[in-house]
């Protein structure tokens, strides 16, 4: 088996003083490694041109580590594969939408990434998975993103090269929001809320119980607050929603306050009491009434719809963490 090979795609300084993006790949046979290398370069260029990463690009190192797997592709249900990191998933099975990726051998990822930057150095690991479907996985718990190749669309038809690259980079950025800043989804994923889950882009009832000041108020501009210091825009469940272009339903607020920071209902979680009362209800990602008690900061954000830019709160979260951990 080919030994891991580390390439520096962008060097801004000592890894212990910088934020390190370490890109790894799984399920690529030796002959397929050029595909991994092409996608690594794509991320190193396009991700760092995207806000908020572009604003802190001088604080970021990017490395790619090539590892060859015995088999091509990764383990899916009923089809085991012998791969370097043992990535496995279930992506197209009935009842499993939207599917998932993971590995029981997370230590292998951490140890291999440490060939580029010490384990304790700040950073994120991005594992490119040799699988044709689209989607992604991100977690701050292990600072790791998994992202496949987006070579086919949801119906199994080949995606165009432009679509493929766009989706690949935009999904990776969304997953980095989870992995770097522990950002919540801003669509309703019907995660049953438990006390103790805190995210800088989701205001929960227990946070309001402890401190009525909304946590993102320090990022407000004067026109966004009323004379009491509270947000002018509060979009509650039942208020008007509408779709525009090909985007999901979004809140409709007054003409003079569109685009303002505020409180917009419907973030990641749902109320546990409502969830238990309607456990079998299908999840509506944008208007599920069980998400009424949870608020997000702005109407549009990459954490709600991957083609939109990060909202002010999410961009600030990513940028702050990178700035604080680097020089």
């Amino acid at each position: 088996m080919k030994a891991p090979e580390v390439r520096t795609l962008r060097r801004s300084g000592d890894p212990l003083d910088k934020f390190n993006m370490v890109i790894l790949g799984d399920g690529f046979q030796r002959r397929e490694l050029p595909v991994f290398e092409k996608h690594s370069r794509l991320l190193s260029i396009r991700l760092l041109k995207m806000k908020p990463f572009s604003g802190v690009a001088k604080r970021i190192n990017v490395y790619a580590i090539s590892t060859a797997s015995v088999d091509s592709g990764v383990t899916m249900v009923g089809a085991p594969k012998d791969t370097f990191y043992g990535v496995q998933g279930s992506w197209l099975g009935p009842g499993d939408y939207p599917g998932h990726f993971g590995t029981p051998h997370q230590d292998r990822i951490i140890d291999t990434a440490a060939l580029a930057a010490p384990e304790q150095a700040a950073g994120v690991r991005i594992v490119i998975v040799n699988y044709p479907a689209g989607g992604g996985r991100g977690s701050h718990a292990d600072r790791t993103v998994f992202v496949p190749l987006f070579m086919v669309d949801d119906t199994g038809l080949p995606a165009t090269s432009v679509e493929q690259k766009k989706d690949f980079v935009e999904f990776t950025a969304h997953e980095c929001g989870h992995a770097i800043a522990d950002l919540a989804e801003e669509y309703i994923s019907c995660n049953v809320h438990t006390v103790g889950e805190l995210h800088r882009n989701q205001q929960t009832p227990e946070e309001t119980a402890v401190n009525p000041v909304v946590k993102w108020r320090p990022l407000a501009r004067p026109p966004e607050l009323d004379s009491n210091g509270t947000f002018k825009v509060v979009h509650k469940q039942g208020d008007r929603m509408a779709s525009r272009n090909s985007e999901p339903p979004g809140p409709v607020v007054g003409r003079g306050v569109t685009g303002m920071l505020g409180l917009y209902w419907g973030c990641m979680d749902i109320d546990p009491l409502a969830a238990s009362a309607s456990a079998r209800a299908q999840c509506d990602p944008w208007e599920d009434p069980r998400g009424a008690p949870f608020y997000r900061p702005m109407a549009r954000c990459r954490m709600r719809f991957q083609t939109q830019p990060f909202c002010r709160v999410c961009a600030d979260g990513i940028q702050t963490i990178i700035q604080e951990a680097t020089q």
Partner: protein
Amino acid sequence: MPAAEVGLYLRLHVEKGRVSVTAAAPVRRWSPALLHAPILTPETYARFTSPGAETVLSLIDERGRVLKAFGFAETPQVYFDRKAPEGYPGLVGSTGDPSQKIREVYLPLAAGASFLSCHRSELTFIREGLFQKPVFNQEHVALYSMARPGQATPPVPTLAVPPDKPVRAATLPWLPRESPRPPRRPGRPRGKAQG
């Protein structure tokens, strides 16, 4: 001159209410942006209407005083996203991955900290007639000495959340210290490791 080491990196293995540290290292730069004090405490739990469990990491001195404490949701969140099925714009997703056992955290390296203590706080609700009654529990999970190799560990003090039976402080598995490396030119292979 290198900056002082002010933070502590920990790789934790979390499973079924058990926590073990599998790697530790001092760091000179880190972000405290995601740290917060414990949410579930004897003083706060009565305000909450949702259940939950929190892992609490506390830095304590040799007399058992808590210098700093931080809370983490017991089940780390893992997010899966995908384009919505054809005809629907946007994303759909789910959270949770039972195979996810690793958790990496950064804590401040508090002066005078002799031990790293870990306890679990849990809030559940039991039905009493028409009402839901909150039940709050805390249990000791693990204790580590902050002593570096070659340093002595002081005797275990009385802990804020006491264990059921006497415990010894385990040694933190410190990562080897990094030696300074020369800068490398972008684009050149950095060498090979054993595969």
